[in-house]
């Protein structure tokens, strides 16, 4: 897996597909003969994916009367941005800020402390580190939802209920196991000679970590940051349970309440759906390869 991750990351870094180009060419000749059923299925699935997306986008540009009067799949006769305006007026900027704060406030600490732990697990030795590593591996199997009740009670006890910090703390904890697994696999692939030469130059382990391991692990760090970031950005259960003030809503929660309040104005509801996805869509357009590599976060094979 670490090799996959590495080649993914490498592709992402250089923006080429040199690694798999040869393999793909071989597959290409093979697959070309599958063209008819394969192509048919491919286009069919495209319709399944695109129709809902198309519907959401065009409806969000319709006026109320356009929504009620036109064919639902026809392009809006008088396209309008007023739905977007009313969404923005309904505090979406605030939700957006909250989501950004929670996402950054979770991902940055997660990656930082997981990187340190991974470095220790790979470079260090001893029973304690083995135990820690084993515990993180076990943690991969804990579903977050199952611990929501004790987390809720603890957050109340800590006087953190209804705060953005309440969303960050459990998010960090639950992202640690996978992040450590991926980063430690990556650090393990750094050639030992490099560590040796750092040591001979008189660098401490602390210096080696920041000056050698960190730059060499950067692609993997970007990958896990994206993976974790998307999960936090789109998370719904923690905000639902741990916050209540309208001013502390994150985007998915804001979408849900907005939908409840504006259920008569479907175009506006769908405009809110589009708006909440926009930042990630922008990310997808500018860094698609990296984003997709981040999404599988080394799950492939």
């Amino acid at each position, binding site marked *: 897996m670490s090799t996959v991750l590495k080649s993914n990351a490498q592709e992402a870094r250089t923006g080429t597909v040199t690694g798999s180009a040869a393999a793909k060419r071989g597959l290409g000749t093979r697959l070309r003969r599958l063209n008819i059923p394969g192509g048919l299925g491919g286009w069919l699935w495209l319709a399944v994916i695109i129709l809902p997306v198309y519907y959401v986008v065009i409806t969000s540009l319709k006026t109320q009367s356009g929504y009620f009067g036109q064919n639902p799949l026809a392009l809006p006769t008088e396209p309008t941005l007023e739905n977007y305006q009313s969404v923005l007026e309904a505090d979406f900027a605030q939700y957006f800020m909250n989501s950004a704060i929670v996402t950054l406030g979770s991902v940055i600490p997660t990656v930082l402390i997981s990187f340190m732990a991974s470095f220790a697990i790979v470079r260090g030795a001893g029973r304690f580190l083995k135990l820690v590593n084993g515990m993180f591996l076990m943690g991969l199997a804990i579903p977050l939802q199952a611990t929501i009740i004790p987390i809720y009670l603890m957050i109340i006890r800590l006087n953190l209920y209804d705060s953005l910090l309440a969303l960050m703390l459990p998010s960090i904890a639950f992202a640690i196991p996978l992040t450590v697994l991926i980063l430690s696999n990556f650090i393990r692939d750094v050639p030992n000679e490099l560590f040796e030469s750092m040591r001979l130059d008189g660098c401490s382990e602390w210096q080696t970590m920041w000056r050698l391991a960190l730059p060499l692990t950067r692609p993997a760090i970007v990958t896990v940051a994206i993976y974790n970031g998307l999960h936090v950005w789109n998370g719904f259960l923690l905000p639902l349970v741990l916050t209540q003030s309208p001013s502390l809503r994150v985007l*998915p929660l804001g979408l849900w309440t907005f939908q409840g309040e504006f259920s008569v104005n479907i175009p506006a509801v769908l405009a809110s*759906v589009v708006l909440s996805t926009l930042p990630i869509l922008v990310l997808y357009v500018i860094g698609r390869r990296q984003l997709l590599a981040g999404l*599988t976060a080394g799950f492939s*094979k």
Partner: protein
Amino acid sequence: MSNAVSTAPGRAVGVKDSKQTEQRKAALAWLTVPALFFFLVFAVIPLAGVLILSFTRRDGIGAIGAAGLDNWFSVLADPGLYNALGLTFLIMIVSWLVQTPISLLLGVFTAGSQRYRAALAVLYFLPLLLSSAAVAIAFKALLDPNFGLATGLGLPFLAQDWLGVPQLALGLVIFVIAWQFVPFHTLIYQGGVRQIPKSLYEAAQIDGAGTIKQFFHITLPQLKYTIITSSTLMVVGSLTYFDLIFILTGGGPGNSTRILALDMYLRGFRANLMGPASVIAVILVIIGLALALFLQRLGGKDKQGSQLEGL
């Protein structure tokens, strides 16, 4: 470390060196402390907490008292639990049956080198960007019998009361889950297919094996571990389809889409029965662990890495 030195004093230096190195290595343990702290406080303690809470009850003012096995007896005697369990497994199995072949075929399809396939893949992965909340809300609008897809496409049979009839709601939930998660698994299979050595296909071509034969004799066996990883993620992940179902159907109509995770939430936070909800949570953890271990065993022991990730 002192491999170039063979004289006696040199060796002594080497020994001293390795002692130092050992100390350095042990000292590294400190670096795990921040991660360990977060993990213990917000993952390990809650996990232990949920087990303890399953033996407690909360009175009207929120004080927690011992309840012995009362919660367990009441939940295990509640037909609602078996409804939720049945639905959870039904959705799990049907979702697996629907999503696996589609993702596998799309993975093979998008791994091809043709331009149009790469272009299609860009669009296939769009649902990955959406939150469950966005997906659920979009489909609710889409399914409106008058102003949704049914009217748009002129297909009256799509104009059903999707959220009002139990069987339809269940089918809808499975469809929307597939819509949201097939892209992720397609991505996994695409990665797996790209790793298959092309020499295998060249050899098969020389032997005169056709495309279909190649698929069943090369692609499928070579994807064994990818299938196990994807299935593990799919099956264990299906225990946590909470957000989507919560927004789409709220567990209804009646209790016809009330899966375990939703049952836990509704008991705990709507009915304010934290004890019984904790029982459901413990059951969820047990099922998750058991499934992960079972699927890991299925894959054999030679590939720990990938399967551990699958957990």
